[in-house]
Structure formats: structure tokens, C-alpha cells
């Protein structure tokens, strides 16, 4: 065997050796347990704090708003899409206040005119044209937007 090949074989053995050591050392422990992913990923996700608690939880204290909301077009919305996750608030409402989404853009998240949205599913207004002088909630009641404030 020519000396070049001999030396190259040594170098390649070292390189591949290092690769396999790295592969072995860095491969996450639970990888491949159930499939081509970290087995522990499932448990890790299971153990995560659930941050959105759902409208039933709000109903315990804010039943007036919940039932009022049912009368209007926002009937199918969860409270937390507007107010943010409520898991801390339901434990201690005094210290953990929720967001009050009073800016025009907050309503715009869903109602802003957008060519990629179907008009059949959600009514759209152009935020730059629809009553620009005021906030949306100066006129619309957020929980039942077809009722207007005086």
C-alpha cells in the first residue's frame, strides 16, 4: 500500500472517530425512544404550565360579562384572545391584572382589512378610514360590539 493511502487512512479514521464520538455525545438522551424525535419532548410539553384557562373559568366570577357577550357577534370568542392568558389572574385577581386591549389596533388584529382574509368569515373595516377620530371602544361595546356606548 502506498504511504499516502496509509496516512490518509489514519487521518480519516480519526475524523470519522471524532464524528461518531460527537454524534454519540451530543445526541439527546431520549432520542429515538418512540420515533425520530426526543422521547422526553412529550413529557416536557406535558409538564408545561397551561396558561389559557378557557371561558368557563372566567364564568365563575364574571358571569355577567360572559352572558352579555353571548348576545352579540363576539359570541364565539374566548375572553383570553383579547385579554391574554388568565392562569395567574384566576388565582389572584387583585394582584394579577389582565390586559385591557383598548387601542384601535387591538380590534384591528382581527378586523383590519386584509386581502388574504375572506370577507365571508369576518367583517373587515379599514382602520385608516373607519371613524379614525376615536378608539373603537368609544363607540362599540367590546363584549357586544353591535351595541354602542352613548
Amino acid at each position: 500500500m502506498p504511504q499516502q493511502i496509509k496516512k490518509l487512512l489514519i487521518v480519516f479514521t480519526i475524523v470519522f472517530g471524532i464524528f461518531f464520538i460527537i454524534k454519540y455525545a451530543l445526541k439527546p438522551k431520549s432520542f429515538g425512544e418512540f420515533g425520530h424525535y426526543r422521547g422526553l419532548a412529550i413529557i416536557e410539553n406535558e409538564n408545561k404550565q397551561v396558561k389559557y384557562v378557557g371561558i368557563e373559568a372566567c364564568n365563575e366570577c364574571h358571569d355577567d360579562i360572559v352572558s352579555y357577550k353571548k348576545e352579540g357577534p363576539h359570541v364565539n370568542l374566548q375572553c383570553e384572545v383579547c385579554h391574554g392568558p388568565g392562569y395567574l389572574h384566576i388565582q389572584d385577581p387583585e394582584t394579577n391584572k389582565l390586559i385591557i386591549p383598548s387601542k384601535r389596533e387591538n380590534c384591528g388584529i382581527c378586523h383590519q382589512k386584509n386581502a388574504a382574509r375572506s370577507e365571508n368569515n369576518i367583517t373587515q373595516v379599514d382602520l385608516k378610514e373607519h371613524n379614525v377620530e376615536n378608539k373603537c371602544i368609544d363607540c362599540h361595546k367590546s363584549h357586544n360590539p353591535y351595541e354602542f356606548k352613548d
Partner: protein
Amino acid sequence: MDPRYEALYEALKNVHGYIYPNEISLTWSILIVEYPYITGLVAGAFILASLNRVFKIKALEPTYIISLLTAFAFLLVATMPLISHLGKPLRFWEIMITPHSTSAMAIFGFVYLWYLMIVLLLEIWFDYRYDFVIWSREKKGVMKYVYKILTLGAMGTSEKDLKWDKKIGYFITVVGIPSAFLLHGYVGFIFGSVKANPWWSSVMMPVIFLFSAMVSGIALVLFVYMGINFIRKKVQNMPTLDSIGKYLFYILIIDFTLESLDQIHRIYEANESFEIISMLVSGKLFFTLGIMQVTVGTLIPLLILGLFQFFKPADKIRKIAYFIISIFVLTGVFFMRWNVVIGGQLFSKSLHGFTTYNLGFGGQEGFLMALFWMIIPFGILAFLLWLLPPWKKTVH
């Protein structure tokens, strides 16, 4: 207004017709344009070197080592645009230690490594091994040891050793040609196999990518070769330039034919995606495809090179023409990649609307980043030319 809404407003201004929400902004940016561009340059430069070695074309000999070093310099950077496009660039290696056989990108990692380590590095090493030994004897100080390490301890300089260098080098070249085809054909395959995208999904894609890669690689070698001669204040070797020009001409014809074939096929088939694609080509892609790719990158070079096959003006004029052609072709192929990558994302999968690509200046995926990865290979090449000067190689 909140910057998010501001951005949405801006984006919506660029939307025409109906598109899906996740299509407003492009996910594959200019960096993904660069990735097939750079791998193409590598494959092309390497194929030129190999043809040169296998068919022993005398006139191309001065470009042999330069093509190899150019290919190597660009190959080292080929994956960088991809990595800097990642949301978490430091996790790029994870794809290599837990690869999945259905992941096109993971397999690319191995195709790339095969090509880098087995083909290019080895070929260059066998070409230079003898010189390393000589240089390690001649040089003083640190460089002596650098060259010594580069020999990997194979210090033989006998006739027999040299014969082996040549023999194995030749063997690697022969293995290297299909490998280079594989490397870049694979990049074309990655795009061609996206069946949801009518602009990409085509069996012709790997072949078209390959030939445009050869075109760009040859143009790059022409550019680099002329540049090196210019910097070293050497006369340009006209027979070499002419013969690179000749090969560029031939491959360019094949490339142009294949791409036209692909388009004609689309036009004749005129399936449901045809309407939007013809709007794309005559609208959003008019400048990058019609002007840059076809006119500047293909037709003008074809015309001039074709003319040179029959009628040779003075050396001085040819020299300038070759230099300009190399830049035109390099630009044209860049825009070919652009038209594939960006063009494929400009129209909606609903086939009813368009969005627009805004190339930012700074930022992770901006113009500066792209420019950076285009300049780095030239830096690496300069370093390689300093470390392994082809003009100081012993001729045997």
C-alpha cells in the same frame, strides 16, 4: 401605530389579488438564492478542472489548479447562507447528528461532506503533496511546520510516490465528476421535488441546475483567472482564454436549450398554473428574467462568444470582451437562481394573486449579509493562493 400593524400595512400594499395569509412575506430570502448559486459555482469550476484533467486539454492547463482552489474556496462557504438563514444558526449541526432519510436537507449535508472531504480536499492534497514536501524543506520558521503538517507525514518523493499521487489523483477526478453532478443535481432536486409549487416542480430542474452551474463555474474561473493575471501583472494567455470561451459557449448553448425546452413545455402544456406563471414572467420577473437572466446573462454572451468562433478581433478587444462576458454570465446565473427561488414564492398557491419581495439592506437576511457571503470566498481564495501558490508548484 404599532410597528407590527405598520409592517402589515406595508406588506398588504404589495399584495395583488387573492393570496393566503402565510404567503404575504417570503420565507426563503436572498440567502436561499445564494445557496444554489454558490454550490453551482463550485460544481461548475470543479467540472471544468476535471474535464481538463481527464481530456488533457493543453490550453486549459493554467486554469486547472485555479479551478480546484476556486471550487474549494466557494465550497467552504456554500452552506453559510443556509446557516445564517436559520432562526437558530448555532443549532445547524443537529441535522447531521440525527439525520432523517426523508429530510432532503440532512442528506444534502452528507452529499456536501462527501464532496468536500473525499473529492475536493483529496484531489487538492494529491496535487500538492509533493510540493508540500519540497516547501517544508525550503521554508523557515512556522511555515516549515505548516507544510509539514499538510503532508500528513507522507514525505516520499521517489518516482514511485509521484506515480501514486498521479494515479490516485486521476481516480479521484473520475469519481469527482459524478460527485459534482450529484452535489448540484441534488440542489436542483430539492427545488424540483416541491410538488406543490408549479414553478419548481419539474424533472428538468436538476439538469437545468447542473448546466447553469457549469456555465457559472466556467465564467467564474475565467473571471478569477483573468483577475489573478491582472493582479500579478502577467500577460493574459490568449489561447487559454479562447478555449475557456469556447467551452463556455458550448455549455451555454446546452443550458439555454434546456431552459427553453422547459419553458416551451410549460407553454404547450398550459395547465392550470400557466396563467399565473405567464403573468409572473411578464410582470414581476420581467426585469430579473427577461433582462438580467436571458438578455444579459445568456443572449449577449452567446452572441459575442458565437461571433468569436468565426471571427477573432484583436487580442485586446477579446480580452475585454471575455472579462465582461464572465461578469455578465455570473450575473445572469445569479438571477436565474433568483428567479427560481424568489419567483417561486411570489405567486399564491391559490393561483389567484401575487406578493412582493422586499430585500432589506441590513439584518439577518438582508443585502449586506448576502454580500458578505459572496465576498468571503474571494478572501479564502486569496489565502489559498498565498498558502498554495500554483505558480510555485514544481512541474513534472
